[in-house]
């Protein structure tokens, strides 16, 4: 009995506190792109299989707490297939990711990529920052921590 209790406790600690929400393009736009507040929304497109994406995630995690929720908010948008929701959740738990994580299920990329950002060719990682629904920064490729921090500083001031 005690053993079972310990097992349950252990799994409760190991299980993610956060769920990964599977969202449509419209839902993504509503939650991460168009909120009407003064926060800088830092939207990072990634996938569990993308090594450079995984490599830069800690910088975004740190930024999410460092700058304060009022100022800057990181939203990780997974481009894993919707079928891989469970493995994305497992990954988030294992890496103890605290920022919001969405899994975009938007159908044909040839249609939705341009609706998000015409300059974007579709390779990941890609990072877009929004303020009051307006794009203030776009970058296709990795970011170094110093680069990310200095961009956030400029955009939140």
């Amino acid at each position: 009995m005690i053993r079972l209790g310990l097992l349950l406790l252990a799994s409760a600690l190991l299980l993610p506190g956060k769920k990964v929400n599977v969202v449509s393009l419209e839902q993504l736009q509503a939650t991460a792109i168009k909120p009407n507040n003064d926060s800088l929304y830092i939207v990072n497109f990634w996938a569990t299989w993308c090594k450079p994406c995984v490599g830069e995630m800690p910088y975004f995690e740190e930024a999410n707490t460092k700058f304060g929720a009022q100022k800057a908010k990181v939203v990780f948008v997974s481009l894993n297939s919707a079928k891989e929701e469970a493995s994305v959740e497992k990954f988030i738990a294992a890496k103890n990711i605290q920022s919001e994580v969405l899994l975009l299920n938007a159908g044909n990329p040839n249609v939705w990529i341009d609706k998000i950002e015409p300059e974007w060719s579709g390779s990941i990682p890609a990072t877009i920052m929004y303020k009051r629904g307006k794009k203030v920064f776009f970058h296709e490729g990795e970011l170094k921590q110093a680069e990310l921090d200095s961009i956030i500083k400029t955009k939140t001031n």
Partner: protein
Amino acid sequence: MKKLATLFVLFVALASFKHGDHGYHIGNEAADFKLKNIDGKMVSLADMKDAKGYIVVFTCNHCPFSKKYEDRIIALDKKYKKQGYPVVAINSNDPVVSPEDSYDKMIERAKQKKFSFPYLYDESQTIAKTYGATRTPHVFVLQKNGSVNNVKYIGAIDDNSDDAKAVTAKYVEQAVDALVAGKEVATTTTKAIGCTIKWKAAQ
């Protein structure tokens, strides 16, 4: 002769500079290349004398999207080589960044999957930069017009990387079918999610 060669190099350099980071657009003349194939031989587009054009695919070993498309790339070559549009696959990834994409691993993968097309190693990454390839897989369909090759389609293979059976638009096939029939390509550029080309670290 040497002077001519220097001039040519300068010209190529200028031509690629003109396109900058953005690479080719539809209608541009695509540069030929001389890249090492998995059999050790150097391959150029001009070597394929019977070709009416080419399906140039920037791809690699490691990328999950490239893997998902591997069988579809093989099928493209099977279907279109006999119609004059062979597949020419190019790996431009830096093996220092992505060890799975080394020349030796390319040879291994091509053997495993019995590639029926050249799988070329763009060691200097010049061709990816010149063409403007950013991700894998990234397709450039070229049409041969005399001694030049014109870019007729840039983008994705189809509209569903996840499930070949659920594809509703086969972009590359539509483009090549149109060219074979002597028609204009209807959808000339498309986008897809893919892995970034793994560029060498700046020196």
